[in-house]
Protein backbone atom coordinates (compact mmCIF):
# COMPACT_ATOMS: atom_id res chain seq x y z
CA UNK A 1 0.00 0.00 0.00
CA UNK A 2 1.24 3.50 -0.82
CA UNK A 3 1.77 6.03 1.95
CA UNK A 4 -0.18 9.31 1.99
CA UNK A 5 2.88 11.02 0.55
CA UNK A 6 3.42 8.48 -2.25
CA UNK A 7 -0.27 8.69 -3.18
CA UNK A 8 -0.03 12.48 -3.49
CA UNK A 9 3.09 12.23 -5.65
CA UNK A 10 1.40 9.70 -7.94
CA UNK A 11 -1.60 12.00 -8.21
CA UNK A 12 0.67 14.90 -9.15
CA UNK A 13 2.41 12.87 -11.82
CA UNK A 14 -0.91 11.70 -13.29
CA UNK A 15 -2.20 15.26 -13.49
CA UNK A 16 0.86 16.52 -15.32
CA UNK A 17 0.66 13.59 -17.76
CA UNK A 18 -3.03 14.36 -18.27
CA UNK A 19 -2.11 17.97 -19.10
CA UNK A 20 0.47 16.76 -21.59
CA UNK A 21 -2.18 14.54 -23.22
CA UNK A 22 -4.54 17.49 -23.52
CA UNK A 23 -1.79 19.62 -25.10
CA UNK A 24 -1.13 16.77 -27.50
CA UNK A 25 -4.75 16.96 -28.66
CA UNK A 26 -4.65 20.76 -28.74
CA UNK A 27 -1.52 20.86 -30.92
CA UNK A 28 -3.08 18.36 -33.28
CA UNK A 29 -6.19 20.54 -33.45
CA UNK A 30 -3.99 23.52 -34.33
CA UNK A 31 -2.48 21.49 -37.19
CA UNK A 32 -5.95 20.52 -38.40
CA UNK A 33 -7.28 24.04 -38.26
CA UNK A 34 -4.45 25.29 -40.48
CA UNK A 35 -5.73 22.88 -43.15
CA UNK A 36 -9.54 22.87 -42.92
CA UNK A 37 -12.21 25.09 -41.37
CA UNK A 38 -14.00 23.26 -38.56
CA UNK A 39 -16.20 25.04 -36.02
CA UNK A 40 -16.57 22.00 -33.84
CA UNK A 41 -12.81 21.80 -33.61
CA UNK A 42 -12.63 25.36 -32.28
CA UNK A 43 -15.23 24.48 -29.70
CA UNK A 44 -13.34 21.37 -28.68
CA UNK A 45 -10.11 23.35 -28.43
CA UNK A 46 -11.77 25.88 -26.13
CA UNK A 47 -13.03 23.10 -23.87
CA UNK A 48 -9.59 21.55 -23.90
CA UNK A 49 -8.04 24.83 -22.90
CA UNK A 50 -10.53 25.18 -20.09
CA UNK A 51 -9.59 21.75 -18.78
CA UNK A 52 -5.91 22.68 -18.92
CA UNK A 53 -6.53 25.80 -16.84
CA UNK A 54 -8.44 23.80 -14.25
CA UNK A 55 -5.74 21.17 -14.03
CA UNK A 56 -3.10 23.85 -13.63
CA UNK A 57 -4.97 25.27 -10.64
CA UNK A 58 -5.51 21.79 -9.20
CA UNK A 59 -1.79 21.10 -9.48
CA UNK A 60 -1.01 24.36 -7.69
CA UNK A 61 -3.29 23.38 -4.83
CA UNK A 62 -1.98 19.84 -4.67
CA UNK A 63 1.63 21.06 -4.49
CA UNK A 64 0.68 23.58 -1.81
CA UNK A 65 -0.86 20.75 0.21
CA UNK A 66 2.16 18.48 -0.19
CA UNK A 67 4.55 21.28 0.85
CA UNK A 68 2.47 22.08 3.91
CA UNK A 69 1.77 18.55 5.08
CA UNK A 70 4.76 16.49 4.03
CA UNK A 71 7.69 18.94 3.99
CA UNK A 72 9.36 17.19 1.05
CA UNK A 73 13.14 17.15 0.65
CA UNK A 74 15.78 16.09 -1.90
CA UNK A 75 14.40 14.34 -5.04
CA UNK A 76 10.82 14.65 -3.77
CA UNK A 77 11.27 18.39 -3.30
CA UNK A 78 12.77 18.77 -6.76
CA UNK A 79 10.04 16.65 -8.33
CA UNK A 80 7.30 18.78 -6.78
CA UNK A 81 9.01 22.08 -7.61
CA UNK A 82 9.50 20.92 -11.19
CA UNK A 83 5.96 19.63 -11.56
CA UNK A 84 4.67 22.99 -10.39
CA UNK A 85 6.79 24.71 -13.01
CA UNK A 86 5.89 22.18 -15.70
CA UNK A 87 2.17 22.65 -15.00
CA UNK A 88 2.55 26.39 -15.62
CA UNK A 89 4.56 25.82 -18.80
CA UNK A 90 1.93 23.43 -20.20
CA UNK A 91 -0.83 25.89 -19.38
CA UNK A 92 1.04 28.53 -21.39
CA UNK A 93 1.46 26.11 -24.30
CA UNK A 94 -2.32 25.60 -24.23
CA UNK A 95 -2.93 29.36 -24.45
CA UNK A 96 -0.49 29.80 -27.30
CA UNK A 97 -1.91 26.85 -29.24
CA UNK A 98 -5.35 28.36 -28.94
CA UNK A 99 -3.96 31.57 -30.40
CA UNK A 100 -2.68 29.60 -33.43
CA UNK A 101 -6.12 28.05 -33.86
CA UNK A 102 -7.85 31.43 -33.77
CA UNK A 103 -5.36 32.87 -36.29
CA UNK A 104 -5.53 29.89 -38.64
CA UNK A 105 -8.67 31.24 -40.29
CA UNK A 106 -6.70 34.16 -41.76
CA UNK A 107 -3.98 32.03 -43.32
CA UNK A 108 -5.78 28.78 -44.19
CA UNK A 109 -6.50 29.71 -47.78
CA UNK A 110 -2.82 30.36 -48.51
CA UNK A 111 -1.86 26.70 -48.53
CA UNK A 112 1.11 27.29 -50.85
CA UNK A 113 2.57 29.86 -48.53
CA UNK A 114 2.02 27.59 -45.51
CA UNK A 115 3.81 24.84 -47.38
CA UNK A 116 6.63 27.09 -48.52
CA UNK A 117 7.46 28.05 -44.96
CA UNK A 118 6.81 24.51 -43.65
CA UNK A 119 4.44 25.83 -41.00
CA UNK A 120 2.69 22.49 -40.52
CA UNK A 121 6.01 20.71 -40.33
CA UNK A 122 7.19 23.05 -37.59
CA UNK A 123 3.99 22.46 -35.68
CA UNK A 124 4.33 18.70 -36.08
CA UNK A 125 7.77 18.94 -34.52
CA UNK A 126 6.19 20.31 -31.35
CA UNK A 127 3.71 17.42 -31.30
CA UNK A 128 6.60 14.95 -31.55
CA UNK A 129 8.46 16.77 -28.80
CA UNK A 130 5.40 16.78 -26.56
CA UNK A 131 5.16 12.97 -26.78
CA UNK A 132 8.84 12.64 -25.89
CA UNK A 133 8.30 14.97 -22.93
CA UNK A 134 5.57 12.67 -21.60
CA UNK A 135 7.96 9.76 -21.81
CA UNK A 136 10.86 11.62 -20.19
CA UNK A 137 8.68 12.99 -17.38
CA UNK A 138 6.96 9.73 -16.53
CA UNK A 139 10.27 7.78 -16.41
CA UNK A 140 12.50 10.52 -14.95
CA UNK A 141 14.65 10.11 -18.04
CA UNK A 142 17.20 12.90 -17.82
CA UNK A 143 19.11 11.76 -20.92
CA UNK A 144 16.00 11.95 -23.08
CA UNK A 145 15.17 15.30 -21.49
CA UNK A 146 18.60 16.60 -22.51
CA UNK A 147 17.97 15.47 -26.10
CA UNK A 148 14.61 17.24 -26.03
CA UNK A 149 16.27 20.37 -24.66
CA UNK A 150 18.70 20.42 -27.59
CA UNK A 151 16.06 19.67 -30.22
CA UNK A 152 13.87 22.48 -28.86
CA UNK A 153 16.74 24.90 -29.24
CA UNK A 154 17.15 23.76 -32.84
CA UNK A 155 13.45 24.20 -33.57
CA UNK A 156 13.54 27.71 -32.09
CA UNK A 157 16.49 28.48 -34.34
CA UNK A 158 14.57 27.21 -37.39
CA UNK A 159 11.54 29.30 -36.39
CA UNK A 160 13.75 32.38 -36.19
CA UNK A 161 15.11 31.69 -39.66
CA UNK A 162 11.59 31.33 -41.08
CA UNK A 163 10.58 34.47 -39.21
CA UNK A 164 13.40 36.42 -40.90
CA UNK A 165 12.53 34.97 -44.30
CA UNK A 166 8.95 36.18 -43.95
CA UNK A 167 10.12 39.63 -42.84
CA UNK A 168 12.38 39.72 -45.91
CA UNK A 169 9.40 38.88 -48.10
CA UNK A 170 7.33 41.61 -46.43
CA UNK A 171 9.91 44.28 -47.17
CA UNK A 172 9.92 43.27 -50.82
CA UNK A 173 6.18 42.94 -51.42
CA UNK A 174 3.82 45.23 -49.58
CA UNK A 175 0.74 43.27 -50.76
CA UNK A 176 1.74 40.26 -48.57
CA UNK A 177 1.86 42.26 -45.36
CA UNK A 178 -1.55 41.15 -44.06
CA UNK A 179 -1.03 37.42 -44.47
CA UNK A 180 2.65 37.69 -43.53
CA UNK A 181 1.78 39.35 -40.24
CA UNK A 182 -0.43 36.43 -39.27
CA UNK A 183 2.23 33.99 -40.41
CA UNK A 184 4.87 35.75 -38.38
CA UNK A 185 2.70 35.54 -35.30
CA UNK A 186 2.04 31.84 -35.88
CA UNK A 187 5.74 31.13 -36.33
CA UNK A 188 6.49 33.16 -33.23
CA UNK A 189 3.87 31.12 -31.38
CA UNK A 190 5.49 27.85 -32.48
CA UNK A 191 8.83 29.22 -31.32
CA UNK A 192 7.28 30.11 -27.94
CA UNK A 193 5.78 26.62 -27.62
CA UNK A 194 9.17 25.11 -28.28
CA UNK A 195 10.70 27.43 -25.69
CA UNK A 196 8.18 26.30 -23.06
CA UNK A 197 8.97 22.68 -23.96
CA UNK A 198 12.66 23.46 -23.54
CA UNK A 199 11.87 24.72 -20.03
CA UNK A 200 9.95 21.52 -19.29
CA UNK A 201 12.93 19.41 -20.41
CA UNK A 202 15.13 21.55 -18.17
CA UNK A 203 12.83 20.89 -15.21
CA UNK A 204 12.96 17.13 -15.82
CA UNK A 205 16.76 17.22 -15.77
CA UNK A 206 16.53 19.20 -12.52
CA UNK A 207 14.44 16.44 -10.89
CA UNK A 208 17.09 13.84 -11.61
CA UNK A 209 20.34 15.78 -11.37
CA UNK A 210 19.51 18.71 -9.10
CA UNK A 211 20.92 21.22 -11.58
CA UNK A 212 19.51 23.35 -14.36
CA UNK A 213 20.64 23.28 -17.99
CA UNK A 214 19.38 26.80 -18.62
CA UNK A 215 21.51 29.80 -17.72
CA UNK A 216 24.31 27.57 -16.42
Amino acid sequence: MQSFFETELTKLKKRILKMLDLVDIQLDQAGQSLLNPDFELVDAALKNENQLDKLDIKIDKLCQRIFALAQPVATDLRFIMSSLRIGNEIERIGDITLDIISRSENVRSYSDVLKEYKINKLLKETIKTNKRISEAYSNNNNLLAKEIFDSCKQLEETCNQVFNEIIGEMTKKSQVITIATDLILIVRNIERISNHMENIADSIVFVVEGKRLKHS
Partner: protein
Amino acid sequence: MKDPKDSKVFVKDLSVYYGQNMALNSISMEIPEKKVTAFIGPSGCGKSTFLRTLNRMNDLIDSFRAEGEVKIDGINIYQKNIDVVNLRKKVGMIFQKSNPFAKSIYENVAYGPRINGIGDKKNLDEIVEKSLKQAAIWEEVKDRLQSSALSLSGGQQQRICIARTLAVNPDIILMDEPASALDPISTSKIEELIHDLKNFYTIIIVTHNMQQAARTSDLTAFFYLGELIEMDKTRTIFTNPAKKQTEDYITGRFG
Protein backbone atom coordinates in the same frame (compact mmCIF):
# COMPACT_ATOMS: atom_id res chain seq x y z
CA MET B 1 41.52 17.78 4.92
CA LYS B 2 42.40 21.23 6.13
CA ASP B 3 44.85 21.84 8.91
CA PRO B 4 43.28 21.01 12.29
CA LYS B 5 43.93 24.58 13.40
CA ASP B 6 41.32 25.86 10.93
CA SER B 7 38.48 23.85 12.50
CA LYS B 8 37.06 24.18 15.97
CA VAL B 9 36.72 20.41 16.18
CA PHE B 10 38.91 18.12 14.12
CA VAL B 11 38.26 14.39 14.22
CA LYS B 12 40.43 11.86 12.42
CA ASP B 13 39.84 8.11 12.12
CA LEU B 14 37.85 7.95 15.33
CA SER B 15 36.58 4.49 16.21
CA VAL B 16 34.63 3.86 19.38
CA TYR B 17 33.97 0.54 21.06
CA TYR B 18 31.67 -0.51 23.87
CA GLY B 19 33.39 -3.74 24.90
CA GLN B 20 33.58 -5.82 21.74
CA ASN B 21 30.98 -3.77 19.92
CA MET B 22 32.15 -1.14 17.49
CA ALA B 23 29.85 1.87 17.84
CA LEU B 24 31.72 4.23 15.52
CA ASN B 25 33.87 3.19 12.60
CA SER B 26 36.75 5.45 11.61
CA ILE B 27 34.97 8.79 11.60
CA SER B 28 36.77 11.80 10.20
CA MET B 29 35.12 15.18 10.40
CA GLU B 30 35.78 18.86 10.77
CA ILE B 31 33.38 21.14 12.59
CA PRO B 32 33.71 24.86 11.95
CA GLU B 33 33.61 27.53 14.63
CA LYS B 34 30.46 29.53 15.37
CA LYS B 35 28.24 27.44 13.14
CA VAL B 36 25.48 24.98 13.93
CA THR B 37 26.27 21.42 12.91
CA ALA B 38 23.47 18.84 13.06
CA PHE B 39 23.92 15.08 13.38
CA ILE B 40 21.10 13.00 11.94
CA GLY B 41 20.56 9.28 11.46
CA PRO B 42 18.39 6.42 12.68
CA SER B 43 18.47 5.26 16.32
CA GLY B 44 21.65 3.38 17.09
CA CYS B 45 23.62 4.94 14.23
CA GLY B 46 26.23 6.37 16.61
CA LYS B 47 25.38 10.06 16.43
CA SER B 48 24.87 10.46 20.19
CA THR B 49 27.96 8.38 20.92
CA PHE B 50 29.91 10.67 18.64
CA LEU B 51 28.47 13.78 20.32
CA ARG B 52 29.46 12.42 23.72
CA THR B 53 33.05 11.74 22.65
CA LEU B 54 33.43 15.48 22.11
CA ASN B 55 33.37 16.24 25.84
CA ARG B 56 34.37 12.76 26.99
CA MET B 57 30.98 11.99 28.50
CA ASN B 58 31.49 8.41 27.35
CA ASP B 59 34.35 8.05 29.84
CA LEU B 60 31.67 7.36 32.44
CA ILE B 61 30.90 4.05 30.70
CA ASP B 62 33.33 1.31 31.78
CA SER B 63 33.50 -0.63 28.55
CA PHE B 64 34.08 2.50 26.45
CA ARG B 65 37.24 2.68 24.35
CA ALA B 66 38.19 5.24 21.68
CA GLU B 67 40.84 5.10 18.98
CA GLY B 68 41.88 7.95 16.72
CA GLU B 69 42.09 11.67 17.18
CA VAL B 70 39.63 14.22 18.53
CA LYS B 71 41.12 17.68 18.54
CA ILE B 72 39.47 20.80 19.88
CA ASP B 73 41.34 23.99 19.05
CA GLY B 74 44.19 21.76 17.93
CA ILE B 75 44.51 19.84 21.21
CA ASN B 76 43.79 16.11 21.35
CA ILE B 77 41.21 15.78 24.12
CA TYR B 78 41.99 12.08 24.64
CA GLN B 79 45.64 12.68 25.54
CA LYS B 80 46.60 11.76 29.09
CA ASN B 81 47.10 15.16 30.73
CA ILE B 82 43.71 16.56 29.74
CA ASP B 83 41.66 17.94 32.63
CA VAL B 84 38.22 16.49 31.86
CA VAL B 85 36.42 18.93 34.17
CA ASN B 86 37.95 21.86 32.31
CA LEU B 87 37.11 20.19 29.02
CA ARG B 88 33.46 19.90 30.00
CA LYS B 89 33.45 23.53 31.04
CA LYS B 90 34.68 24.43 27.60
CA VAL B 91 32.35 21.95 25.89
CA GLY B 92 28.95 22.27 27.58
CA MET B 93 26.06 19.92 27.06
CA ILE B 94 22.27 20.11 26.93
CA PHE B 95 20.26 16.91 27.19
CA GLN B 96 16.93 15.73 25.86
CA LYS B 97 15.27 15.90 29.24
CA SER B 98 15.81 19.17 31.04
CA ASN B 99 17.62 18.48 34.30
CA PRO B 100 17.72 21.57 36.49
CA PHE B 101 18.98 21.14 40.05
CA ALA B 102 16.35 21.15 42.77
CA LYS B 103 17.43 24.66 43.67
CA SER B 104 16.30 28.18 42.87
CA ILE B 105 16.53 29.53 39.33
CA TYR B 106 19.33 31.81 40.50
CA GLU B 107 21.31 29.01 42.13
CA ASN B 108 21.00 26.80 39.06
CA VAL B 109 22.77 29.39 36.95
CA ALA B 110 25.19 30.59 39.67
CA TYR B 111 26.25 27.03 40.52
CA GLY B 112 28.90 26.66 37.78
CA PRO B 113 30.59 30.04 38.27
CA ARG B 114 30.51 29.54 42.05
CA ILE B 115 32.34 26.20 41.97
CA ASN B 116 34.80 27.82 39.61
CA GLY B 117 35.70 30.26 42.37
CA ILE B 118 33.49 33.25 41.71
CA GLY B 119 32.08 34.16 45.13
CA ASP B 120 31.43 37.86 44.74
CA LYS B 121 27.64 38.44 44.74
CA LYS B 122 27.74 41.39 42.34
CA ASN B 123 29.77 39.36 39.90
CA LEU B 124 27.45 36.38 40.23
CA ASP B 125 24.38 38.57 39.76
CA GLU B 126 25.83 39.87 36.54
CA ILE B 127 26.65 36.40 35.23
CA VAL B 128 23.19 35.08 36.14
CA GLU B 129 21.43 37.97 34.43
CA LYS B 130 23.64 37.80 31.34
CA SER B 131 23.23 34.04 31.02
CA LEU B 132 19.45 34.13 31.49
CA LYS B 133 19.23 36.93 28.92
CA GLN B 134 21.33 34.97 26.45
CA ALA B 135 19.14 31.95 27.01
CA ALA B 136 16.09 34.12 26.22
CA ILE B 137 14.36 33.47 29.54
CA TRP B 138 15.30 36.52 31.62
CA GLU B 139 12.02 38.35 30.99
CA GLU B 140 10.03 35.31 32.13
CA VAL B 141 11.92 34.70 35.38
CA LYS B 142 13.53 38.00 36.45
CA ASP B 143 10.89 38.57 39.14
CA ARG B 144 11.14 35.12 40.66
CA LEU B 145 14.80 34.22 40.61
CA GLN B 146 14.51 32.64 44.05
CA SER B 147 11.69 30.27 43.01
CA SER B 148 12.54 26.66 42.43
CA ALA B 149 13.66 25.90 38.88
CA LEU B 150 11.46 22.82 39.08
CA SER B 151 8.37 25.04 39.21
CA LEU B 152 8.95 26.13 35.62
CA SER B 153 7.49 24.54 32.49
CA GLY B 154 9.51 21.99 30.49
CA GLY B 155 10.47 24.55 27.85
CA GLN B 156 11.51 27.08 30.50
CA GLN B 157 13.50 24.44 32.40
CA GLN B 158 15.38 23.60 29.22
CA ARG B 159 16.30 27.26 28.74
CA ILE B 160 17.43 27.43 32.41
CA CYS B 161 19.72 24.49 31.63
CA ILE B 162 21.05 26.37 28.61
CA ALA B 163 21.64 29.44 30.82
CA ARG B 164 23.44 27.19 33.34
CA THR B 165 25.70 25.95 30.55
CA LEU B 166 26.36 29.47 29.27
CA ALA B 167 27.24 30.72 32.76
CA VAL B 168 30.57 28.87 32.73
CA ASN B 169 31.47 30.50 29.44
CA PRO B 170 31.84 27.51 27.13
CA ASP B 171 33.18 27.55 23.55
CA ILE B 172 31.15 24.67 22.27
CA ILE B 173 27.61 23.59 23.18
CA LEU B 174 26.54 20.02 22.52
CA MET B 175 22.79 19.47 22.34
CA ASP B 176 21.34 15.98 22.43
CA GLU B 177 17.72 16.20 21.20
CA PRO B 178 17.22 19.47 23.12
CA ALA B 179 13.63 20.03 22.00
CA SER B 180 12.22 16.56 21.51
CA ALA B 181 10.27 16.63 24.77
CA LEU B 182 8.86 20.11 24.18
CA ASP B 183 5.69 21.50 22.60
CA PRO B 184 5.95 23.40 19.27
CA ILE B 185 6.06 26.85 20.88
CA SER B 186 8.86 25.93 23.30
CA THR B 187 10.60 24.12 20.43
CA SER B 188 10.56 27.20 18.27
CA LYS B 189 11.95 29.26 21.18
CA ILE B 190 14.84 26.81 21.52
CA GLU B 191 15.41 26.89 17.77
CA GLU B 192 15.47 30.70 17.75
CA LEU B 193 17.87 30.57 20.65
CA ILE B 194 20.18 28.22 18.76
CA HIS B 195 20.12 30.66 15.89
CA ASP B 196 21.13 33.56 18.17
CA LEU B 197 23.73 31.60 20.13
CA LYS B 198 25.70 30.58 17.07
CA ASN B 199 27.02 34.12 16.86
CA PHE B 200 29.04 33.39 20.00
CA TYR B 201 29.34 29.60 20.28
CA THR B 202 29.98 26.53 18.17
CA ILE B 203 26.85 24.42 18.41
CA ILE B 204 26.50 20.73 17.66
CA ILE B 205 23.03 19.26 17.80
CA VAL B 206 21.73 15.71 17.57
CA THR B 207 18.14 15.55 16.40
CA HIS B 208 15.62 13.07 15.07
CA ASN B 209 13.52 15.93 13.79
CA MET B 210 14.59 16.38 10.20
CA GLN B 211 12.89 19.76 9.85
CA GLN B 212 14.66 20.94 12.98
CA ALA B 213 18.03 19.99 11.51
CA ALA B 214 17.05 21.75 8.29
CA ARG B 215 15.84 24.88 10.09
CA THR B 216 18.59 25.32 12.63
CA SER B 217 21.85 24.04 11.20
CA ASP B 218 24.48 25.25 8.75
CA LEU B 219 25.99 21.80 8.25
CA THR B 220 24.45 18.37 8.51
CA ALA B 221 26.18 15.04 9.03
CA PHE B 222 24.30 11.81 8.33
CA PHE B 223 25.36 8.73 10.32
CA TYR B 224 24.36 5.16 9.62
CA LEU B 225 25.51 1.98 11.37
CA GLY B 226 28.39 3.74 13.09
CA GLU B 227 29.69 5.36 9.93
CA LEU B 228 29.61 8.92 8.70
CA ILE B 229 27.86 8.56 5.36
CA GLU B 230 27.80 12.16 4.28
CA MET B 231 28.45 15.64 5.64
CA ASP B 232 27.71 18.81 3.72
CA LYS B 233 26.00 22.16 3.91
CA THR B 234 22.49 21.61 5.28
CA ARG B 235 20.96 23.20 2.22
CA THR B 236 22.76 20.66 0.01
CA ILE B 237 21.87 17.66 2.18
CA PHE B 238 18.18 18.57 2.09
CA THR B 239 17.96 19.53 -1.57
CA ASN B 240 20.48 17.37 -3.37
CA PRO B 241 22.38 14.90 -1.19
CA ALA B 242 25.24 13.03 -2.83
CA LYS B 243 24.64 9.60 -1.29
CA LYS B 244 21.62 7.40 -1.90
CA GLN B 245 21.50 6.32 1.77
CA THR B 246 21.18 9.97 2.82
CA GLU B 247 18.45 10.56 0.25
CA ASP B 248 16.55 7.46 1.40
CA TYR B 249 16.78 8.48 5.04
CA ILE B 250 15.73 12.11 4.71
CA THR B 251 12.87 11.27 2.34
CA GLY B 252 11.62 8.59 4.73
CA ARG B 253 12.21 5.66 2.37
CA PHE B 254 14.74 3.90 4.54
CA GLY B 255 15.04 0.13 4.65
